[in-house]
């Protein structure tokens, strides 16, 4: 036995131990970095969303006429500005950007607060306050644009936050102990909204409802029947034999059979559908295919979507808004009753723009709320309703619509389109008491018009 073996073994053991320790340290550091990075990402994206909310709320506050609506908008502005500011405070940003942004957010919050006080004392928003709101709105637009640029960078290459983190590592002697998440989110009200098709965001809260109104009193259907119902919904191509199979169950809000429809060879792609056990209605349908170059224009696609619904027993429907994604267009179609647009009864139809085939359908909102309604008679005229709108607006339209308010209530309102500068809004004036019920801002995106 040679004498040098023992020190070598000890050395190797020590080396291994150090290696393992180092590797664990490395893993732990990476985990922590990930953790911290995610905290920053969340704070950043939340803040970006809240600044966007501030922008949209400010623009609504410019056009609201009813002081009750105005003060609720101003309250939301204050809240959103405060949220945005505390999220900003969690971000490792340099003072140049953070200081300016933080100051702006404080100002917006304070100003909104003072306006709410003013309104609660019965004082009106006069011309100069309006100008201040307008200038705050313009600043918020700039800030939002800037943040969106950063957001784009962050999602395109995550290097941004990585670099930020390595900077922090160099600057910090110890791990930051300030990772506690501030608990903003424990509010039941949906505070942050994202742009979405009309009456699809805060209003399509169907989760609370339990019984689908449209299926009330219907009988249970068998699996065989469900297959037939599914086949009837497929936008069939000529000369293709479709095969339907029940592949499982879905016990969601509306219990359903899951059906797969197979077009066989060369017939296209498989379509999946949920057919409700009660009433045998299709809840959703999706065909997982890609669409080629558009050969159908939007108007043709819209007619196709409306025709599709008509052929499948949906009564009179009106296409309200649409968005484009990939080479697909998704149309929002609302039910009509006595010429009144029933926004809660919403169906979404997706049309592939390459051949005009209907590849998707979503009816859960419709099934949850559709029924024949006892619509009240409007007690104020369209002209009287128009008088309730901010005179700065160029107003058009004025059709009656039933709009969802909160999760359960519905109100009959006149729907006006208003333009202020280059911005468009929808204004809803209650047809029974003349109150301004709601203002939605129309948001132009490359894919179509969304609302917030």
């Amino acid at each position, binding site marked *: 036995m040679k004498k040098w073996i023992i020190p070598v073994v000890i050395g190797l053991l020590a080396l291994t131990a150090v290696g393992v320790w180092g590797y664990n340290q490395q893993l732990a550091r*990476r*985990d922590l970095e990930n953790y911290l*990075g995610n905290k920053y*990402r969340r704070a*950043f*994206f939340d803040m*970006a*969303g809240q600044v*966007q909310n501030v*922008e*949209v709320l400010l623009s609504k506050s410019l056009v609201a*006429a009813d*002081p009750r609506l105005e003060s609720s908008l101003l309250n939301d502005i204050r809240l959103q500005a405060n949220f945005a500011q505390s999220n900003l405070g969690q971000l490792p940003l340099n003072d140049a950007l953070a200081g300016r942004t933080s100051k702006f957010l404080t100002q917006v919050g304070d100003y909104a607060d003072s306006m709410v006080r003013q309104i609660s004392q*019965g*004082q*009106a928003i006069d*011309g100069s306050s309006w100008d201040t709101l307008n200038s705050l*709105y313009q600043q918020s637009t700039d800030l939002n644009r800037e943040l969106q640029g950063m*957001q*784009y960078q962050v*999602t395109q290459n*995550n290097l941004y936050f990585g670099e930020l983190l390595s900077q922090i590592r160099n600057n910090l002697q110890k791990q930051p102990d300030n990772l506690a998440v501030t608990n903003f*989110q424990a509010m039941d009200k949906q505070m*942050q909204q*994202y*742009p*979405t*098709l009309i009456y*699809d965001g805060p209003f399509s809260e169907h*989760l609370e409802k339990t019984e689908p109104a449209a299926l009330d009193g219907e009988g249970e259907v068998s699996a065989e029947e469900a297959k037939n119902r599914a086949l009837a919904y497929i936008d069939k191509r000529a000369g293709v034999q479709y095969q339907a199979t029940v592949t*499982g169950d879905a*016990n969601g*809000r509306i219990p359903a059979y*899951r059906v797969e429809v197979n077009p066989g060879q060369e017939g296209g792609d498989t379509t*999946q559908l*949920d057919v409700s056990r009660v009433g045998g209605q299709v809840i*959703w349908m*999706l065909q997982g*295919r890609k669409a080629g170059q558009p050969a159908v224009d939007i108007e043709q696609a819209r007619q196709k979507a409306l025709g599709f619904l008509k052929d499948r027993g949906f009564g009179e429907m009106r296409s309200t808004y649409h968005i484009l994604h*990939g080479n*697909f267009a998704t149309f929002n179609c609302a039910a009509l009753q006595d010429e009144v647009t029933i926004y809660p009864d919403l169906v*979404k139809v997706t049309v592939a723009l390459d051949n005009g085939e209907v590849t*998707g359908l*979503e009816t*859960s909102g419709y099934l949850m709320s559709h029924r024949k309604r006892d619509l009240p008679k409007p007690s104020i005229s369209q*002209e*009287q309703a128009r*008088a309730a709108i*901010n*005179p700065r607006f160029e107003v058009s339209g004025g059709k009656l619509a039933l709009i969802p308010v909160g999760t359960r209530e519905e109100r009959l309102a006149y729907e006006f389109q208003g333009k202020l*500068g*280059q*911005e468009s809004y929808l204004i809803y004036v209650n047809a029974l008491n*003349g*109150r301004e019920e709601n203002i939605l*801002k129309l*948001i132009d*995106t490359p*894919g179509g018009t*969304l609302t917030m």
Partner: protein
Amino acid sequence: MDDHLITCLLSAGFLFLGRLHKKWITRKNINILSGGWGIIFKECSVSKRIILYSFCALVLAVAVVTLYYRQAAAQTQGVSWGNSGDEVTSVQNRLSQWGYYTGSLDGYYGYDTYRAVQNFQRNNGIDPNGIVGDATLDAMGLSSPAAAPSVARGAATDQGDVSLLAQVIEGEASNESYLGKVAVGAVIANRTKSASFPHTISGVIFQDFAFESISNGQAYRPVTSESVEAAQAALAGYDPTGGALFFWNPYKPVSSWIWSRSIITQIGNHVFAR
């Protein structure tokens, strides 16, 4: 003053001025016929002419001044007691919104409206004269601005939410079918509407321990177009999960707690539950 009166005054003034010479001649003859008085008249003729001219000028001036004041009044006066019409209705409407006016929106400016206007004016630091003038209209937000106000074009988009959602879909369900991807997106969208979760896409995604691919950083890689399309479909409202709030891979070890949730369905390698 009445519109007709002003018109009468104006036209009378002009008529007198126009016919003055003709009339003068006729009167001169009459004066000559009337003898002695005629001489006085004749002597006074120049001064009478001046009187007549100045009378005409006076009538015209009165008419013009009245007209001017009327227009000025129309600009500042707005509506006051005794008026009726659409403008009164808007004022009543606005006052009732603020809670100053509780009467009916009948479009007649009566005592109740008067009191309401005065209260409004007092509260807003305007002279409480009960007349809805420019300042009051402005305070009520009823004055239309002379020029269209310059309002910036907004910068709101849905890009942030779409790309974030696509990233998680890529991280959690890159091997799933399109349907499976939409389903994962729908769970996140459903969570934003649930009282038990944060109400923002970013809040849900970056919640601690919510998504493994976010915790371990695997989600941060280039996304495929299918993931982006699935994210758009989920945000457009497609929900193949029937309202699910949870999903997990049943072939991997997960906490036993999650199996206690009520399972809705399975799509690909994911179980979806409420």
